[in-house]
Each structure stands twice: as structure tokens, then as C-alpha cells.
């Protein structure tokens, strides 16, 4: 089923400047992450961030420690777009904030820690946080040249409508195939949309082990769907022209393209892909029932999961419209619905509705997506970044 287009020199030749990290990764942004370990420290975190350039806030709100939340925070901190981390603690929450800062520092990434109680209250904690953050930002960062093939690109959809499967997702699928042909890496998830795709995905899995992992992920998603009564194909779907469950699912899955799955990443652990090619991020409950984030479905959660797996950038398709961004990974919005695009243009980077109106082909929009990824990797802000969107979900 793989039909890769011949590469033009345009994609292969493009190079951009990135930020070298101690673990060998290279980021396309140099963000300072202010990571709060309880909601009581969120407000102070934001006040510190307001006084800094390129600082973003994320964290775990519950006072109770949570193994899954801890792992997700550590993996977010490990994202190559994060240059340094300031851990913000109230001081009495159950999560061991100093240990988190120490673990991050042990990876070679600059990190520091502020306890609001130890600092002496609002003003002194903000002042201390700003001072420590500025010190972290002064640590020199080596700039190195990278290309499209060095990027990990996440693909995601939200606010889908009938245009998603005929415009935005096929165009992203086209871009995904081209990216992987350059030696790049793509991560897709949303396993609940893989029902019926067992045949296609396992038939071209790189190894029998990967095929087995894909099947396990789909079975778990199917069982979850049966329990929650949100599975399979409805009479309304058939009325609308969808013939089989695999066709319905592929309307979403096609944004991953048609290259073989070369790796299955495990939600909960939020591993980074270790080789180029297409990767499926399997749901957390494959290994760790009860971990946070599992079964949570939202635009910010999907983007955060991809960021935790080391994505440099996320390409996000929508039909009805979404505003979600991330402080850690630039989010490129691809809108397939011409009416939505017209109404929400300030949030949309790519107008894929032109496929439906006949102004452009799927290939042309796919090429524009690749060009946008290159521009974003070169430092151009996405609409979500420009608007200051910084959603997250831990």
C-alpha cells in the first residue's frame, strides 16, 4: 500500500538551527519550563513566567503524589524544546519536588527548585524564582544545524467533522509519508480510532512483535469502547456513506500516512522514538492501569502526550475548530472545513478546505504542511504560539 512520491530536493536540503541538549537531542525552541508540583504553586509559577522571555508553565495540580503524573512531568521536562526547568513547590505536597529537580539535573539539563514556604511567601518566592530562572536561562546553549529528518512530528486531530477524512487528514497523511521518506519520525495516537484497522496496520508492521503490540493496543481500545458504549459504526455513519468500521477509522488514521509502523510507544512511560519512521503511541492502560491521563480525551491532553514522547512539533487537524496550543511544542493547525477556516482564521495555520473547493490538491496542501513544519522549525511562530496558547494536561 506504500506509494511514496519521489522526493524533491526542497525537503531534503533544508537545514535549520536547533538547540543542542546534553542528552543528544536537538530542540527547535529554547523554552524554560516552570513545572509546578501542586496547584498551590501554579499562581506563583505564572507570576514568575510573566517576568521572563520564553518561559512556559505546566504541572500537576493534585496534592497527592501520582506515579504517572511524575513520569509525565519528567518526560515533558526531557522534551528537546525545553532548555531548562524550574520546579515550583509549595513545600508540603506529597510529590517530592526536590527529587524531580534532581532527576532532571541528572540528565544534564539545567534545573533548579523553589519552595514557596521556604522562600517566605508570594513576593519572595516570585523574586527567587525569577532570579533562579534567569540563571538557568544564562547557561550557554550550543546551536547546531538540523534538518527535517531530525524532527519528531506528532499528528493529532480534534474537533473533527465530515471534512476531516476528505481534506485535512489525507493532506497530513501525504505530508507524513513524505516526512518519513526523508528519514523523519512521526508519532500518531488515538488508538480508539484504530478499530477495524487491525488488518491494515498489522499486515505492514515492521516485525511480528510490533504487529502483536498494535493488536494488543487495538483490543484494549475496543474493550474500553465496549465498556463505554462508544465503539463501532452507527446507522447514521452508514447513512452518511461510511461502509465499514475500517473506513470510519481510516478517516482519522489516514493522517499517519501509509508507511509501516516501526515502533509502538507506551503511554504512561512516554518513551521517545529511538529510530526513524512511523510510531504508534499506545494508550497508557496497555501497561499501567490507573495511571493518570489514561482515557482522558481532550485536545490539550493529546498534544501533551506527544510532547512527553519527545515531539518537536505537532500537526493538528480540525474541522469544527480548536484553539489549543502548547508552550513546549509548536502546534500547526490544519483546518479542512472552509467555513470554519473563514470564521477562525486567526487560529489556523493551513487552509485544507481548499481541497474541497477545488483550489488546491491534497498533494499541494501536503507540501504546504511540510513547508510550514520547516518554517516552524526555523523559528517562525505558529498561530497558537503567536496567540500565547500554552494548554497542557498532566
Amino acid at each position: 500500500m506504500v506509494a511514496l512520491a519521489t522526493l524533491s530536493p526542497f525537503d531534503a536540503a533544508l537545514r535549520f538551527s536547533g538547540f543542542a541538549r546534553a542528552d543528544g537531542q536537538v530542540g527547535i525552541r529554547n523554552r524554560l519550563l516552570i513545572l509546578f508540583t501542586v496547584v498551590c504553586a501554579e499562581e506563583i509559577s505564572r507570576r514568575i513566567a510573566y517576568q521572563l522571555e520564553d518561559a512556559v508553565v505546566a504541572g500537576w495540580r493534585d496534592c497527592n503524589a501520582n506515579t504517572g503524573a511524575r513520569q509525565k512531568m519528567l518526560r515533558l521536562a526531557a522534551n528537546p524544546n525545553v532548555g531548562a526547568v524550574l520546579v515550583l513547590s509549595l513545600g508540603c505536597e506529597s510529590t517530592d519536588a526536590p527529587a524531580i529537580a534532581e532527576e532532571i539535573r541528572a540528565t544534564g539539563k539545567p534545573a533548579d527548585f523553589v519552595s514557596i514556604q521556604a522562600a517566605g511567601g508570594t513576593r519572595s518566592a516570585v523574586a527567587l524564582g525569577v532570579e533562579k530562572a534567569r540563571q538557568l536561562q544564562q547557561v550557554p546553549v550550543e546551536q547546531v544545524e538540523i534538518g527535517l529528518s531530525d524532527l519528531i512530528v506528532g499528528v493529532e486531530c480534534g474537533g473533527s467533522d465530515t471534512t476531516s477524512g476528505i481534506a485535512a487528514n489525507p493532506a497530513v497523511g501525504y505530508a507524513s509519508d513524505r516526512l518519513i521518506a526523508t528519514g523523519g519520525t512521526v508519532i500518531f495516537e488515538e488508538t480508539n480510532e484504530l478499530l477495524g484497522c487491525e488488518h491494515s496496520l498489522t499486515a505492514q508492521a515492521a516485525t511480528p512483535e510490533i504487529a502483536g503490540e498494535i493488536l494488543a493496543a487495538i483490543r484494549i481500545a475496543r474493550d474500553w469502547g465496549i465498556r463505554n458504549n462508544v465503539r463501532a459504526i452507527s446507522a447514521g455513519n452508514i447513512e452518511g456513506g461510511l461502509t465499514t468500521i475500517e473506513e470510519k477509522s481510516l478517516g482519522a488514521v489516514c493522517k499517519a500516512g501509509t508507511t509501516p509502523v516501526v515502533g509502538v510507544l507506551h503511554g504512561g512511560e512516554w518513551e521517545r522514538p529511538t529510530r526513524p519512521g512511523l510510531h504508534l503511541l499506545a494508550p497508557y492502560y496497555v501497561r499501567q492501569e490507573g495511571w493518570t491521563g489514561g482515557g482522558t480525551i481532550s485536545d490539550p491532553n493529546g498534544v501533551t502526550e506527544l510532547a512527553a514522547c519527545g515531539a518537536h512539533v505537532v500537526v493538528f487537524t480540525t474541522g469544527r475548530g480548536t484553539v489549543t496550543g502548547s508552550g513546549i511544542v509548536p502546534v500547526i493547525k490544519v483546518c479542512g472545513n472552509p467555513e470554519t477556516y473563514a470564521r477562525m482564521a486567526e487560529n489556523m495555520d493551513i487552509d485544507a478546505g481548499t481541497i474541497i473547493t477545488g483550489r488546491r490538491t491534497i498533494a499541494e496542501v501536503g507540501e504546504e504542511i511540510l513547508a510550514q513544519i520547516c518554517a516552524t522549525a526555523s523559528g517562525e511562530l505558529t498561530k497558537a504560539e503567536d496567540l500565547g496558547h500554552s494548554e497542557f494536561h498532566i
Partner: protein
Amino acid sequence: MTSSTPPDLIVLHDADNVATALLDLPPGQPARVAGIHGPLPDLAPSVAIRLGHKVAIRDVPAGELVVKHGYPIGRAKKDIATGEHVHVHNVLSLSRETDVATAESSGKGV
């Protein structure tokens, strides 16, 4: 590469043997078909096709895979001719071949 007029049917991947209707199409009238890289030859559906439904862009013999998005979405239950409506009356889901549990839980036989 592109035509300025909106297409009536769209092919979503080079490997596909079906096109999807972007609007309600009457039978027997030539419809404009958009391909991945540009317009494809016009195609006249043999019956009325509603928005979102599929038309075969080449003959699909019984037992062959029906391909959309570059992936098989099912198997032809009977011979399907170019221009014919492709839907539940002439396509069977592959999930019934590969996953008995899915077929059982859908309430229909394998």
C-alpha cells in the same frame, strides 16, 4: 495543477479504487474527479450518489479489496463496475475476517 471549479468526487490516495462524493450527484452525468496531484478524467456514476458516498473509479472484481485512504476498507462481495455505488450492499468489512470478536459484538454473523 488544480481546477478552479470545485470537484464533484475526490480520490484520497493514489492507491485507491474509489472516490468520495463531495455533493449529491445525479446518475449518468459526468462528474469532475479530483486526484491527489490534479484532476482525473470525468466519471459518470451509474446511480444517484449522495454526499459522502463512494463510487468505484475502476472495476473491482468480487473478492478484491476496496481501497480508500491507501488502505483496504473491505472486500467486494460481488463484481463492482466503474461508476457503481460502493457501499454495504457490495462490500464486506475485513474486520469480520480478522477479528471474530468484533463481528460477534456487532451483532452480525461472521
